[in-house]
């Protein structure tokens, strides 16, 4: 168990950690996330005393770590960094065995460890142990980086954006491997990332930091459903909708709000020009008090209209309307029976909120299913 108690750290004028207090339970996969400069890496590096806090105390299993020998402390905590940092002058085997050797394990003890660990990531000992890091791919190098951190069986492993420099496919494979290893070996992992995907995939607990403080510490589910701060919602962006798929979606979730509206007194040529400019074939007509009156289509004006007439004369009222809070399913049915291929969404006061087309509906459904779409 790792416990932070009122931990603060400043560099000159800037406070990077502000009175941080939280607790990491044994066996948890804890992800520190937040915008850059939020203090997540600093927090991580205080755990193995690569950074010493100005004030406050960090306990591991009840022991104040500032009272421990930093070198011995670090040997008892695994450490993986983004730049991997495998020693290029050592073979794969020597790299993995480096901490056991520092701890003076005899060869009979460390060699089986190296073999076991290589097996764990599907890199056979005979093929890989005597290669040098430069002879491995980036993904293989970071696998060895992870194994090096695990070799002396530390109960805690710190990982500082370990997969940040890898390509997406390799990253995904390593995420799965690390998660599997963590479960199998029951490690406490503290993991820094700025990638919300990665956090949601790996974490038991997510610690969302900003400006040296914790904004929210919660399970991924909890964070998605009840983000405690607008910054968190923003950071999660595309993920927000994903758990709401079965929640109460309303017309408002599907509509587009950028619609062409005009008073009935607008003249035909002007409205035709407006519709052409916006590349649409109909527009909404409003009453004097801005409430919804009807729609007018480009085709109708072209067939019946003459220049200089008011568009109100050609207005149609056959397009279905729905209230903003209308249930998604009802809205969906109205859309599919609408002769114009769209429905108008109205606010409670009958003013126009937006409209739903088949395209906007499909896009919103897609986003709800798979996250943010490229428009």
């Amino acid at each position: 168990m790792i416990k932070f108690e009122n931990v603060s750290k400043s560099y000159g004028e800037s406070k990077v950690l502000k009175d941080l207090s939280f607790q990491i339970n044994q066996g948890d996969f804890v992800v520190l996330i937040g915008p850059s400069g939020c203090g997540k890496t600093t927090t991580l590096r205080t755990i193995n005393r690569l950074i010493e806090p100005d004030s406050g105390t960090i306990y591991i299993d009840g022991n104040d770590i500032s009272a421990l020998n930093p070198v011995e402390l670090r040997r008892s905590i695994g450490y993986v960094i983004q730049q991997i940092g495998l020693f290029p002058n050592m073979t794969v085997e020597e790299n993995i065995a480096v901490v056991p050797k520092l701890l003076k394990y005899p060869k009979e003890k460390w060699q089986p460890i190296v073999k076991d660990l290589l097996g764990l990531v599907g890199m056979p000992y005979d093929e890989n142990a005597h290669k040098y890091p430069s002879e491995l791919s980036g993904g293989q190098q970071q696998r060895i980086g992870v194994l090096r951190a695990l070799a002396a069986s530390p109960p805690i492993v710190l990982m500082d954006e370990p997969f940040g420099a890898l390509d997406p496919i390799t990253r995904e494979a390593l995420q799965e491997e690390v998660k599997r290893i963590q479960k199998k070996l029951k490690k406490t992992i503290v993991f820094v990332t700025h990638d919300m995907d990665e956090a949601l995939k790996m974490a038991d607990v997510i610690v969302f930091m900003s400006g040296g403080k914790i904004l929210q510490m919660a399970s991924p589910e909890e964070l998605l459903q009840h983000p405690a701060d607008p910054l968190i919602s923003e950071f999660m962006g595309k993920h927000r909708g994903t758990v709401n798929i079965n929640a109460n979606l309303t017309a408002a979730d599907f509509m587009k709000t950028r619609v062409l509206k005009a008073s009935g007194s607008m003249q035909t040529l002007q409205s035709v020009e407006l519709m052409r400019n916006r590349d649409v074939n109909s527009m909404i007509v409003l009453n004097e008090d801005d409430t919804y009156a009807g729609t007018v289509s480009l085709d109708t004006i072209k067939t019946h209209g003459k220049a200089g007439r008011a568009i109100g004369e050609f207005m149609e009222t056959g397009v279905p309307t729905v209230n903003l809070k209308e249930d998604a399913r009802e809205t969906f049915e109205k859309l599919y029976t609408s002769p114009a291929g769209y429905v108008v969404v109205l606010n409670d006061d009958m003013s126009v909120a937006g409209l739903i087309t088949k395209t906007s509906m499909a896009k919103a459904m897609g986003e709800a299913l798979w996250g943010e779409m490229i428009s």
Partner: protein
Amino acid sequence: MTLIEFFIANQKDILGSLIRHFQLVGISVAAGMLIAIPLGIFLSRFQRFAPIILNFAGMIQTIPGLVMLGFALLLFGIGLLPALVVLSLYAVLPILHNTYTGITEVEKSYIEAARGIGMTDGQILYKVELPLALSSIVGGIRTSTVFTVSWATLAGLIGAGGLGDLIWTGLATYNTNYILAGAIPSAVVAVVLSGLIHLIQKKITPRGLKGVSA
């Protein structure tokens, strides 16, 4: 008398000069290493001193060899000692420079990883920094050796012997054979030693580093 006949006739003298030349080079490069490598390591730990020391060593390097020998003559008299002092001073800079840059240019991620997994400062130096800087350090030794072989010819001027003796004798008596008997072996020695150290350099560079650093 042809050059070859001269070489054969004077083989004892030439061989003696050659051996003395090797002694001059060997002792001064060894002394240079003893000073420069620890000093380079020290400077890499306390980098604020580095500019002063490296500039000072650079300044020594720019003083003409004859001037240095003159000073040494005043201080230590005639013979082997002043020559060795001067040559050792010259041997320091390339090794010092390469030791310092070799260590300080080790990628920070290796140091970060080494510290993070629990190496002490000494272990970081011996297990990570020095092995990674070794190729650069040996490169410095090679440069020093080649330079010292040529500067050692000046040592003949202050009675330290070596191949320079033959050259200066030749110059003083307009005897081309003497000049060549000193010049050719010293050129050969420079080339051979340079090649030899280059081989060692390649040999000690771990496989994992080849192609990574030139």
